[in-house]
């Protein structure tokens, strides 16, 4: 620790801190325009200058490290004058179009000018007259207002790992722009907008919609992925009109991705349900709540009486709150009398949970978003974490920047592979073989923790289980050259601290239960614990839904049995889920849904599934109700009602309570706090943690053959999440259509044109999509994002039940 004096006050700060950090930590403000806590010191704006005793020159506080006994002054007449001059010079070029600038009222330059400047300037200079870049979908750049602090450039390059923009040129002519002055085409995370101290970067959907001082800011939790970011929403007239991250706030510490920042507007979609709907002929008729609930009550009772409670099932939602899912379970148990309840997590998170139970005997993994930092070696298995959990993904990039050896095993080129120390471009779905191969090397070379491993049962089974996975065989299966495989494996095994990370999501088909088990085996063998295996839950409340008991009950039926089996249920109650689009093997699901005697869907919009329903109930969205999300780290976070609703939507838990009453049951839950008290009383059963090796084989998915020669990889895009985000207008401006990504070589082979239509067929069905030619996928594989309902990509997919990755083989045909 170092002791110094700032403005006569003695402060103690850690070694290596800068004067600015020391001041901020002690509540002393120093004006600045280019400082950002997340970035390395830059020293561009010269506003943070301070006087240091014994130094003739003024020093930039942001880039001067503190020394013992330093005496710093941050406010003196000399400093006032220096800052005044800097601002005066900035204002020579700045357009002063504040009356029409969205930033006015929250502009750092405006605030500082107010504090330091007079109305007269001693200088005359030119203003810039660049065209405003209005061409890009959601981010607008006005370089005339730019003060060249370079914050956006550094946020984009250093923090986001993108580098879409940079400072071009020199002197007065310098400006911030994409590489060749083209229209901005990037991830559209919008981090640059939050970073910009002036109005040079702005949100297009927000443009001209309000003056800053009319906005009311409310914090809420993001409704998309499992990271659980805190987003600050700006409200006007009861409506969210902008989202932003505030430095240091929440798990995300102010970082947001494109979905969090721009994707909130799905709740204002014109297609929101306003009243309950009851099927009538081929269409629906509007109904009152009373009418709809009584209709459901009557129907469900009749089905229960005729076929028993076991003929009724329910599907919950990882997008709904803990309270909503708890109430659905309570409704099924207490009112219907059935344990048939499950969710889409069956296809993703359930596999992670199964592996965690089998390998570590734990209820859940200790997921920690800071876990990548400081690890010597990190191995990512076929997971594009920067798309599925974007803000968490930043920590992997940061770890690599700070010296971690980042190994990314992935077929596709992603942001992670571009930033990797070693990219292992394996064949799709072969991660299990790769991991087994590393385990074999660990045994052969003695590179494992003999003492710890010998205390875990199943060690000899494991060494037997991997004995066939020679480097030669692994190289044949994965397509990675033997040398690179062996060197990378040894580098990982010899590292002082290690981490493996992977995601298993509903829409990803390159991993299965076996992949997770193989990763756990490897870590246990080398003496690492469960904290070294980072497999996060997928959506905003996947964790909460699962751990509040929404998996199938011990006696109940799971989704596979309810929808895919011979003997499907007769009636289904679906809350906030769209199985017709998001579940694998869509044709089978569609058939099952159409075959039901009675289907109730409660959702915020008329989804593809809701269109098949007998009764549709309008639910309140996440921003229109109070409740709880539990993020992938297991942290409970409250969501709040911050937006007014049009029409008559009701929170999901309330719909279910009202329905229970309509069926003649008093289930309590007078209000949300009574319900929360009830949930808090439930104690989760303690588990005895027991570690076991579970040797697994690499089982190929559908192997490409002469009829279906290509392997289809399905997955997530950075701008979309499940089938929810496609309802957002802003996100649809960036990407609104499904596409097939295909390599140059395959495009030539199959006569596919860029942007031309192709028919993609698997053994289960076929779909029509546009092609995008890109060598981000190698020859032999194609990539399809699953988000877009109209494309029905899940017509091509299938279930995996044996621990393998549910890869599908497809053929393609260019449409003339």
């Amino acid at each position, binding site marked *: 620790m170092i002791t110094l004096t700032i403005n006569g006050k003695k402060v103690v700060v850690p070694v290596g801190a800068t004067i600015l950090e020391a001041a901020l930590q002690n509540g002393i403000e120093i004006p600045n325009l280019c400082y950002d806590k997340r970035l390395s010191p830059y020293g561009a704006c010269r506003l943070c200058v301070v006087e240091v005793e014994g130094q003739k020159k003024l020093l930039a506080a942001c880039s001067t490290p503190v020394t013992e006994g330093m005496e710093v002054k941050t406010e003196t007449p000399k400093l006032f004058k220096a800052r005044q001059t800097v601002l005066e010079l900035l204002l020579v070029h700045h357009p002063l179009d504040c009356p029409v600038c969205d930033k006015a009222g929250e502009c750092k330059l405006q605030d500082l000018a107010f504090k330091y400047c007079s109305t007269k300037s001693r200088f005359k200079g030119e203003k810039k007259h660049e065209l405003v870049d209005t061409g890009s979908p959601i981010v607008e750049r006005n370089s005339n207002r730019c003060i060249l602090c370079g914050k956006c*450039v550094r946020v984009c*390059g250093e923090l986001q790992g*993108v*580098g*879409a*923009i*940079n*400072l*071009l*040129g*020199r002197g007065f002519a*310098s400006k911030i*722009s*994409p*590489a*060749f002055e083209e229209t901005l085409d990037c991830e559209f995370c919008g981090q640059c907008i939050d970073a910009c101290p002036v109005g040079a970067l702005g949100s297009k959907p927000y443009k001209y919609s309000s003056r800053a001082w009319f906005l009311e800011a409310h914090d809420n939790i993001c409704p998309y992925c499992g990271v659980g970011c805190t987003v600050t929403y700006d409200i006007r007239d009861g409506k969210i009109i902008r989202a932003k991250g505030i430095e240091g706030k929440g798990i995300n510490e102010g970082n947001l991705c494109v979905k969090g920042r721009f994707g909130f507007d799905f709740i204002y979609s014109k297609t929101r349900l306003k009243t309950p709907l009851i099927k009538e002929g081929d269409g629906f008729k509007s109904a009152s709540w009373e009418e709809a609930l009584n209709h459901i009550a009557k129907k469900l009772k009749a089905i229960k009486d005729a076929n028993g409670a076991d003929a009724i099932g329910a599907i919950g939602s990882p997008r709904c709150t803990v309270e909503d899912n708890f109430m659905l379970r309570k409704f099924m148990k207490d009112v219907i009398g059935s344990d048939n309840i499950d969710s889409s997590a069956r296809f993703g998170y359930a596999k992670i949970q199964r592996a965690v139970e089998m390998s570590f005997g734990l209820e859940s993994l200790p997921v920690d978003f800071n876990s990548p930092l400081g690890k010597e070696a990190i191995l990512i298995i076929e997971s594009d974490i920067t798309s599925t959990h974007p803000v968490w993904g930043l920590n992997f990039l940061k770890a690599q920047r700070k010296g971690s050896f980042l190994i990314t095993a992935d077929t596709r080129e992603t942001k992670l592979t*571009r930033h990797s120390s070693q990219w292992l471009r394996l064949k799709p779905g072969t991660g299990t073989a790769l991991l087994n191969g590393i385990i074999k090397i660990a045994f052969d070379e003695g590179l494992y923790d003999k003492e710890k491993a010998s205390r875990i049962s199943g060690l000899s089974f494991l060494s037997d289980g991997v004995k066939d996975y020679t480097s030669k065989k692994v190289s044949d299966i994965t397509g990675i050259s033997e040398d690179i495989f062996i060197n990378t494996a040894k580098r990982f095994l010899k590292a002082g601290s290690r981490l493996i990370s992977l995601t298993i999501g509903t829409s990803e088909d390159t991993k299965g239960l076996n992949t997770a088990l193989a990763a756990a085996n490897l870590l246990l063998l080398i003496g690492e614990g469960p904290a070294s295996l980072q497999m996060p839950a997928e959506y905003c409340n996947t964790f909460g839904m699962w751990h509040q008991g929404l998996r199938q009950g011990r006696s109940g039926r799971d989704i596979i049995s309810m929808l895919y089996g011979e003997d499907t249920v007769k009636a289904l109650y679906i809350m906030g889920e769209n199985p017709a689009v998001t579940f694998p093997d869509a044709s089978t699901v569609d058939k099952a849904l159409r075959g039901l005697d009675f289907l109730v869907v409660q959702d915020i919009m008329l989804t593809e599934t809701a269109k098949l329903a007998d009764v549709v109930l309008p639910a309140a969205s996440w921003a229109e109700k109070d409740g709880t999300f539990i993020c992938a780290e297991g942290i409970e976070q409250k969501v709040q009602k911050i937006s007014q609703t049009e029409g008559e939507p009701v929170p999901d838990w309330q719909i279910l309570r009202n329905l229970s009453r309509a069926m003649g049951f008093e289930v309590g839950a007078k209000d949300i706090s009574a319900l929360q008290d009830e949930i808090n009383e439930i104690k989760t059963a303690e588990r005895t943690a027991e570690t076991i090796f579970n040797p697994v084989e690499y089982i190929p998915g559908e192997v490409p053959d002469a009829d279906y020669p290509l392997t289809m990889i399905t997955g997530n895009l950075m701008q979309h999440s499940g089938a929810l985000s496609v309802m957002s207008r802003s996100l649809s401006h960036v990407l609104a259509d499904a596409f097939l990504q295909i390599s140059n070589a395959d495009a030539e082979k199959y006569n596919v044109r860029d942007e031309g239509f192709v028919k993609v067929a698997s053994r289960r069905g076929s779909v029509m999509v546009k092609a995008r030619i890109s060598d981000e996928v190698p020859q032999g594989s194609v990539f399809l994002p699953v988000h877009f309902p109209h494309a029905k990509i899940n017509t091509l997919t299938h279930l995996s039940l044996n621990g393998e990755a549910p890869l599908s083989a497809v053929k393609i045909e260019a449409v003339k």
Partner: protein
Amino acid sequence: MLKEIEDIKAKYPDTRAALLPALYIAQKEFGWLSLDAMKAVANALNLPESDVRGTASFYSMFRLKPAGRNLIQLCTNISCMILGAERLRDLLKDRYGLLPGGTTEDGRFSLVIMECIGACGTAPAMLVNTDLYENLTEHNIAEILGKYK
């Protein structure tokens, strides 16, 4: 060119540090840095294209416009200026139609005004491609340039 960039990469701690030498290699190869040349460098070094363009547009020794077969770099800093560099500049304009930053119509010469060449004792001085010429006069400059076709 890619092979050369690959070799240079090994000498630096990271690829960003190899950017300047890599740009020199590309410029030597193509005569100037075209859009494609910059993209190729970005690709070879696994750097964002904006970093490459940003760097190339900052330094005056990188040419972002097509250049002639021979590049004249004339110094006009203080010693050269006192001893007549400005007259030489006018001469290039009158006789060859060559303006600073420009190229002759026949593509034979390009002219760049460069900062101090370090030949103050023998000013005025210029570089033609990589050859240094000192003690320039209105008479000998024509003779020198005659050697370059």
